[in-house]
């Protein structure tokens, strides 16, 4: 059992260092509370002042993001952000990282990541309608990576399928830098009736604090802090027990909370999920946000294990728990409501006017600190940054060698990052709730909104390679690529959520990456009019001094105002004309082709222009709204040739295309490009809109990809190419 050191002993042994508090931070706590903090209090501060809870390293950077706009009902700061979509409805979304738990125990790590983000959504009063993921793993030639990925996928599906939320999209890329530190981000989207918007606030003296859901065990106690050197092995396994997800309990919890919110507004003051740093962060944040204090009696907390000390009870990250603030007089009614769903609801305390955060255990006060000191007084650091050497010098574009383009195309289609992800997403129920109009496999997932003529387009994107070569432009591209996927699906981008997955911010070069990437993202968000409404920061993704590529995952939601505008990437009719939107250049640094031919990426990133990006997106939007587009697809990894092939695969129909470009440029990854197909009798109408931004390159039809360049021509049967593309990932996953 954990021994609770006396305040003096904490000071003399510097135990706080083990919990991630610095000397200065420890001093600051003493100043704030006017004495030495005891064991429990030190633990509370360590958790609440961790990067995960306090954003002490990233706060100044997050300030760059635009967060407001005419449609924005709730920006960052609550469980999730909210955007108005008309008809008294709003869309609620957020993403979360679960990288470390996934690396340690992939099935449960991924599953509990999904469970956590779902709670953020329904705690806002919204019904979750879709899940997405964003996965970046090491190369599949390592047995351990295969195991990690297979289990991660099973865990995402295991949780989402069981709870009945469709997983409608995501991304999956590979690079050796993610071998020891895989990235697992999950995003959840919910639909809200505007009247039911909730806040995680505990206001009103004597109102009741209720704990609902699963019992507390010693799960993931060090989740928000980090492992302590002082623990010996036996204790360590005991204390930081793996969090196991219980999707059935969460389904019941979700239904019960939604009934409480929708049908009993008179009972509920505020609601918040217990995520990182469990009970302490949810309760302290709810009180501080409302400007009240709180008294909690820890003996009332439902406990799964015996002999838990206050530190453990407060920091446990047991899953499937929520904290409620209930108006006086409604305690029994709330208990009955949850009992009906087979769940515990227990009063563990009440709100006070005094702005203190007070905990009792076995009848004694074990913590008594100003509530704002926990939530608002964490230090903010302005870390030094230094441009990494690799970014200092401009280099020329990589010149690929392409003598047999058909062969190159086949090889690219089998690269794990390009190959079909069907073997992944078929493990996810993408259709439950019967709203999924476009299932995974096209650019964005599309969900209709029942009772309206509208739909939502949702996607996650990040190309860590581009960010490695140029964090700022890479950050812009991540946002723009997400927007392109939404636009290609027929949508208007509304806003984004993000997960910033980076190495240690204490390394000036990593901090530089973080700073530049967020600056780029912010610029792109401004340009596209897509505010950041929520997000999550995951730093310290490194082992043995090697950090992952900077990986800011962007999750975007767009509105498709008319269901007729819903568009997929699939070529549909022989004879349709194919246009490229945007221009192609010889951009190969950071490309799939460079990776494939050289085994690694290098060089400076190509030029990228936000104005061009926006203009090209608008052309595609206009074409779709004019009702003349049969298919639309953005060009990403592998360039034009891969994009054309992807559009051919689903309908197994070919195309004849001629471009006056060097052959290798078929694979260039110049940004801001789309391919659209249009019926031949709409040529004039299409070209009136496209003008100079695009070009007619050929037509749909036949059974082969027939491509002509300025240097050569080739023909590849669609079925041959499709087989290679379809089978590549499956055989590597086994």
């Amino acid at each position, binding site marked *: 059992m954990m021994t609770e050191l006396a305040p003096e002993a904490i000071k003399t042994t510097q135990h706080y260092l083990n919990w991630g508090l610095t000397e200065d931070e420890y001093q600051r706590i003493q100043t704030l509370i006017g004495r030495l903090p005891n064991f429990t209090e030190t633990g509370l501060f360590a958790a609440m002042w961790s990067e995960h809870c306090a954003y002490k390293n990233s706060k100044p950077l997050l300030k760059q993001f635009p967060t407001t706009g005419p449609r924005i009902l709730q920006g960052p700061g609550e469980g999730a952000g909210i955007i108005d979509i008309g008809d008294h409805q709003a869309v609620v979304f957020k993403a979360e990282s679960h990288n470390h738990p996934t690396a340690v125990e992939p099935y449960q790590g991924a599953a509990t990541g999904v469970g956590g983000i779902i709670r953020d959504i329904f705690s806002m009063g919204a019904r979750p309608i879709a899940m997405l993921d964003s996965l970046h793993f090491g190369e599949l030639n390592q047995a351990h990576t295969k195991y990690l990925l297979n289990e991660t996928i099973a865990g995402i599906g295991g949780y989402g399928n069981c709870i009945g939320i469709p997983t409608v999209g995501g991304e999956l890329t590979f690079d050796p830098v993610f071998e020891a530190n895989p990235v697992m981000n999950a995003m959840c989207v919910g639909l809200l009736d505007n009247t039911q918007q909730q806040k995680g606030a505990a206001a009103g003296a004597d109102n009741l604090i209720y704990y609902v859901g*699963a019992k507390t065990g010693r799960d993931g106690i060090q989740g928000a802090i980090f492992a302590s050197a002082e623990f010996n092995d036996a204790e360590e396994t005991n204390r930081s027990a793996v969090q196991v997800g219980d999707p059935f309990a969460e389904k019941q919890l979700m239904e019960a909370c939604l009934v409480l919110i929708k049908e009993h507004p008179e009972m509920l003051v505020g609601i918040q999920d217990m995520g990182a740093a469990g009970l302490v962060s949810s309760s302290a944040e709810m009180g501080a946000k409302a400007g009240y204090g709180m008294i909690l009696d820890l003996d009332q907390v439902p406990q799964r294990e015996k002999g838990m000390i206050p530190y453990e009870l407060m920091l446990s990250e047991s899953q499937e728990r929520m904290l409620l603030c209930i108006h006086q007089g409604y305690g029994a009614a709330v208990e009955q409501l949850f009992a009906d769903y087979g769940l515990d609801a227990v009063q563990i305390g009440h709100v006070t006017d005094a702005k203190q955060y007070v905990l009792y255990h076995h009848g004694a006060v074990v913590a008594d600190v100003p509530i704002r000191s926990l939530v608002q007084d964490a230090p903010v650091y302005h870390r030094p940054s230094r441009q990494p050497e690799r970014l200092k010098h401009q280099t020329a574009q990589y010149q690929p060698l392409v003598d047999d383009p058909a062969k190159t195309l086949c090889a690219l289609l089998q690269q794990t990052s390009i190959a079909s992800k069907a073997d992944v997403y078929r493990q996810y129920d993408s259709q439950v709730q019967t709203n999924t109009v476009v299932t995974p496999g096209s650019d964005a997932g599309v969900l209709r909104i029942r009772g309206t003529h509208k739909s939502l387009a949702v996607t996650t994107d990040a190309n860590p390679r581009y960010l490695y070569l140029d964090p700022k432009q890479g950050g812009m591209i991540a946002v723009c690529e997400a927007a392109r996927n939404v636009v290609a699906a027929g949508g208007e981008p509304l806003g984004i959520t993000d997960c910033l997955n980076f190495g240690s911010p204490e390394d000036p070069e990593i901090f530089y990456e973080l700073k530049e990437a967020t600056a780029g993202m912010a610029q792109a968000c401004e340009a596209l009019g897509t505010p950041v409404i929520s997000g999550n920061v995951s730093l310290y993704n490194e082992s043995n001094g090697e950090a992952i590529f900077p990986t800011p995952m962007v999750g975007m939601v767009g509105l498709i105002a008319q269901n007729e505008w819903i568009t997929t990437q699939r070529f549909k009719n022989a004879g349709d004309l194919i246009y490229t939107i945007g221009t192609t250049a010889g951009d190969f640094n950071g490309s799939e082709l460079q990776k494939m031919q050289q085994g690694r990426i290098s060089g400076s990133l190509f030029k990228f222009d936000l104005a061009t990006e926006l203009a090209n997106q608008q052309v595609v939007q206009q074409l779709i709204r004019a009702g003349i587009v049969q298919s639309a697809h953005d060009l990403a990894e592998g360039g034009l040739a891969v994009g054309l092939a992807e559009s051919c695969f689903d309908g197994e129909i070919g195309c004849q295309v001629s471009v006056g470009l060097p052959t290798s440029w078929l694979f260039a990854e110049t940004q801001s490009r789309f391919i659209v197909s249009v019926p031949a009798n709409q040529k004039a109408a299409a070209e009136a809109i496209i003008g100079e931004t695009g070009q007619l390159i050929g037509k749909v039809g036949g059974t082969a990809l027939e491509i002509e360049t300025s240097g050569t021509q080739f023909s590849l049967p669609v079925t041959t190419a499709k087989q290679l593309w379809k089978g590549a990932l499956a055989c590597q996953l086994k």
Partner: protein
Amino acid sequence: MYHVKIYITYKESILDPQGETIKKTLHQLNYQNVASVTVGKYFEIDLAASDEAPEVEVERMCAELLANVNMESYRYEIEAVSVNEAI
């Protein structure tokens, strides 16, 4: 030939959602006297004799594949059988 029986259960501190749900159901079915339910996995393996001692092999199998040592503990019983019996 060896007959091996392997039992795998969650470690004590780990949540066992199935066990809880089954316990509740048993209570509803009027088995009020059920105090706790733990759900685990059970393997029966027939193992031909090899150079290695069966204990060593089984131990490795458990740690490498059958159990997730982050969360689960395992125990096993090994019984030598004549080949005829094993079939």
